[in-house]
């Protein structure tokens, strides 16, 4: 296979990833990274680097829209980045050390396990529009971590206050770690912390998570780029395809109101996770 064919196939992989990623809410990298490793034999850290570049491309596009529409809570997002960024720096460094210690296979198995762990979380995810009311903690009061947005569906303004910032910061560090280590957006973990611990409404959680994913991705990508693990001939077509697929997904998303139909896409992620584990175990 020559380089032009390879680039086109990587673009198509990105389109599939962007589509599945936007329909499941997991992001395109969960498809792109396993396919690059299993189908094309791309080394793990290079695939992780490509995954982070796809995250930067797609999150900047969607993040810009959420910010423009005042749906992302900039204050809460930037406060939590103090946890996700160190997590991503540690994660990306850890991946490089483990690869240099010839432990790429262990990383592959860990990636597969993480992907398999994410899927049930998406299935069981609470889709409650508004969280139960709760009181802001001292840190949230001191930093003014509260906001308001107009909910078109509910036809009224919705006010919210951040509640438990300490556990949220802990989960955010973990989300950054996973993102930096495995090149995925880890938006599921971020949304979990925003909804479960901070008590933010669903729409604000999704938009704020998207706003933060770019900065978390930039932390991991910066290390991998400087260390020579981002190959533009692989990362660029993956990012272009993923951005296209995500756009396609956003166009057909309103048509797929039935949650079950959307969940049908999750087995794709599950199958890829199993293939990655088998590759890590040397069985594929």
């Amino acid at each position, binding site marked *: 296979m020559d380089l032009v064919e390879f680039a086109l196939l990587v673009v198509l992989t990105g389109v599939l990833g962007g589509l599945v990623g936007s329909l499941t809410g997991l992001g395109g990298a969960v498809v792109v990274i396993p396919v690059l490793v299993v189908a094309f034999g791309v080394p793990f850290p*290079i695939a992780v680097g490509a995954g982070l570049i796809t995250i930067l491309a797609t999150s900047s596009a969607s993040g810009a829209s959420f910010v423009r529409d005042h749906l992302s809570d*900039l204050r809460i997002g930037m406060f939590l*980045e103090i946890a996700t960024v160190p997590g991503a720096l540690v994660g990306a460094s850890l991946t490089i050390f483990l690869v240099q210690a010839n432990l790429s296979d262990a990383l592959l198995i860990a990636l597969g396990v993480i992907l398999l762990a994410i899927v049930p979380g998406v299935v069981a995810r609470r889709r409650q529009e508004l969280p139960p009311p709760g009181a802001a903690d001292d840190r949230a009061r001191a930093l003014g971590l509260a906001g308001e947005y107009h909910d078109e569906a509910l036809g009224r303004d919705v006010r919210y206050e951040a509640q438990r910032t300490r556990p949220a910061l802990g989960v955010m560090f973990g989300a950054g770690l996973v993102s930096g280590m495995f090149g995925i957006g880890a938006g599921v973990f971020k949304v979990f912390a925003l909804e479960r611990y901070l008590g933010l409404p669903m729409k604000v959680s999704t938009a704020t998570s998207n706003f933060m994913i770019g900065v978390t991705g930039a932390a991991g990508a910066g290390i991998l780029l400087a260390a020579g693990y981002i190959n*533009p001939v692989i990362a660029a077509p993956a*990012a272009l395809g993923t951005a296209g697929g995500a756009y396609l997904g956003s166009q057909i998303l309103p048509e797929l109101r039935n949650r079950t139909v959307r969940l049908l896409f999750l087995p794709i992620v599950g199958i890829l996770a199993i293939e990655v584990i088998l590759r890590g175990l040397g069985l594929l």
Partner: protein
Amino acid sequence: MSSPEAPGPGRPVPIRALPDSAYVRMSLVLRLGLGVSLAILIAGLIAYLIQHGTESYSVIVSSNPILSYLNLRGLAAGLAGGHIEAYLTLGLLALVATPILRVLSGFYYFHSGGERVMAAITFAVMILLLLGLLVLGPWVH
């Protein structure tokens, strides 16, 4: 006695919204950064494929064409010499720099609004991002 910075428990937390211009500017930074970086990457990729398209893909899987351009001197020389790989590196750098610029604009708004703690947090995030790109990455390599 409770200060205006920390209203007492039970009372609603006052909403300290950033000015509309913050939303507009951050959205613009993200759009412009993405547009510029993708334009450079697409043009660079097409040019690279025109030059190397018939080579086997296994070469690109096992080697990285931008390694010589990952330092300032190499990048500047590559750009001045019109090397496609240097432009691809520039596109990647622009993509990574876009969220960093977004953090910088956040710092500007918190600092000019007199919010010292939030300004310090965003400044620390920016320093950490630059540390990863300029110190940690080359070091672990």
